């Protein structure tokens, strides 16, 4: 479909840890999936905003009621504040690409939102509801499908999208993936953070650190297999600054997701028609923030040796692979399709 001045196509990857947007005007942004409201009048005066989103919210967290509203990629239930936070997150993403909320010249926003397969199944209406007033038409697709579409890996391919909250698997067999073609695991980036935090506490009992610090360390130095360098971080301990060697803790924590990921990958492979299994084995694509773990593709290839070997590649741009795929879908859908999906 041709873009016009009256329409703007966007692809959104709504993630537990980070959310990304790619727009047909060429804008691409990624933000931390945090939303925070000043806790009192003093905080509001200091931050000078009624609500903070992304990195800004994280950095000012001491003054904010901070929310990370997407638990395992699904809008948290039981908290109206978290629903509101999702809307703020989406509103902020749209504003980043230069779309104003109101105004005569505001183009019609056609959004494709990629979410974990599980969210797609259980909270489709909540997600559509969250988009009201933000986009004019919305299409929800499973995150790995968006990645596959963007990469044109539509036949005999497996996408493994490992984010913070979930690891989503999808086998592409030239058809729109059904539930049988997809799996969602909750052992993903957040699980690594929890494990890493636990191991550091056990081995460096005097060190003081927060989950946010652990997350940053992981994002900088995560690896599986052999380390390229020692992982040494700085954290306060007994009121002083201490250097902690967390190389082994990092390795064990990152490798903790390998067994379920490998098991699911091989299980899904075994369900592919026998004549195509080799093709799929040689076309496994890893996306998502956790695909940046050093040595991950090699570890997955090692696991593939038993069923006959295979090739695993990591997408070039893991943070935007989902949103770029969403944008491709949004552009290819016809005006008639979008009219059917209007909010």
């Amino acid at each position, binding site marked *: 479909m041709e873009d016009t001045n009256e329409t703007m196509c966007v692809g959104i990857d709504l993630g537990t840890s980070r959310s990304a947007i790619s727009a047909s005007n060429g804008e691409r942004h990624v933000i931390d999936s945090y939303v925070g409201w000043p806790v009192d009048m003093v905080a509001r005066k200091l931050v000078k905003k009624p609500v903070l989103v992304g990195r800004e919210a994280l950095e000012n967290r001491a003054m904010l009621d901070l929310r990370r509203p997407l*638990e395992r990629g699904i809008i948290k239930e039981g908290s109206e504040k978290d629903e509101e936070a999702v809307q703020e997150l989406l509103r902020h993403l749209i504003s980043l690409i230069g779309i104003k909320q109101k105004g005569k010249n505001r183009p019609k926003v056609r959004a494709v939102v990629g979410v974990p397969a599980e969210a797609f199944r259980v909270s489709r209406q909540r997600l559509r509801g969250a988009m009201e007033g933000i986009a004019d038409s919305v*299409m929800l697709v499973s995150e790995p499908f968006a990645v596959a579409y963007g990469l044109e890996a539509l036949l005999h391919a497996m996408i493994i999208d490992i984010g913070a909250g979930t690891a989503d698997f999808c086998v592409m067999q030239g058809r729109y993936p059904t539930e049988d073609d997809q799996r969602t695991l909750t052992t993903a980036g957040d699980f690594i953070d929890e494990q890493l935090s636990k191991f550091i506490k056990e081995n460096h009992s005097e060190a003081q650190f927060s989950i946010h610090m652990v997350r940053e360390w992981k994002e900088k130095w995560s690896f599986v297999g052999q380390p390229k360098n020692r992982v040494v971080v700085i954290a306060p301990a007994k009121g002083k600054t201490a250097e902690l060697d967390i190389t082994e803790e990092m390795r064990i924590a990152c490798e903790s997701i390998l067994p379920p990921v490998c098991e699911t990958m091989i299980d899904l492979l075994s369900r592919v028609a026998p004549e195509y299994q080799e093709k799929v084995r040689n076309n496994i694509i890893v996306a998502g923030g956790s695909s940046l773990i050093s040595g991950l593709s090699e570890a997955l290839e090692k696991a593939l040796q038993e069923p006959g070997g295979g090739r695993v590649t990591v997408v070039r741009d893991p943070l935007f692979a989902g949103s770029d795929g969403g944008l491709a879908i949004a552009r290819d859908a016809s005006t008639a399709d979008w009219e059917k*999906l209007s909010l």
Partner: protein
Amino acid sequence: MENVEKTKLRLLREAVQNNIEGVRSPRPKARARRKGVLTLWLWGGLLVATLGYLLAPGHGVSKGSAPATADAKVESVASPAPLDDPILEPEAPLPTPRPLNRAVVPLAIRRIVIDAGHGGHHTGAIADSGLSEKEVTLDIALRLRRLIGNGAFEVIMTRQDDRTVSLAKRVEFANSSRADLFVSIHVNWLEPRNIRALETFYVGPTDDPAVMKLASLENHDSGYSLADYRRILEKVYIDERRDESRELARSIHTELYRELRQVNTKLENRGVKTAPFAVLIGTQMPAILAEVSCLSNHDEVELLSDGNYREKIALAILRGIHRYSNNFNIYVKKGT
């Protein structure tokens, strides 16, 4: 082989169609859902009949047919139900439930089952101080009954003292009492032990390993394997009772978190989740299971040792029930 553009076009068409189907069958509005409570009971009965049929010997999901291991979990998701089972035959879908006109049958919450978790030989979690889950849950349940008093609801309890009551008996008791709601009170044990979390469950499958572990612990004496539950739940996923249970879980959870974080500022809100707990699967009415605190956390044990804190928990659950009940619009006092 067709080219990529053709494949993309086809996939796009399927994606749009999939979304349109989602738009056409939206999640029922809260009020509309509640109108269907009587219908929901009928479906609940059908659900139980289905469960009974499935769990009967020789019907594919009998006890011990699959080990409750991680492998079994994956297998149970993917394996289709036996096609020779007339109830699970996919080509013969059940008719769509139709909302009931409330003018015909007034609906209200009258009778509530309060289920104090564990008891007797089943101590549940035990804190370092010796405080046990069975003691805490019973105390909160008794407080809740007292708070309700002679108010809007009639309360019946699965146990009123320290005795062993199997999960199956609890389910049977709730169903035979024709209760309108089932509220099960439990206390969590979480690692690492610095966690202090609040979470509330309603019936449904889960892929969360922590919830699977919790469910397997809480279902310890049920007699069914987790793989059995999971397979059954795949088939009852669209049960209308689920929506009502979720509403009840959300109401109670919201009140619990609001009340408790005032004194327990580090309390983590883990939200409302689905899990295959035996008491949630078998009961015919909207049912929830609240893990109101953590006996693994030293600070929470201290709080739980204080009667005022347990009173707050009971009060919050009561408020949650009222919140859910008030959304019915019709508020019928006990005995009217």
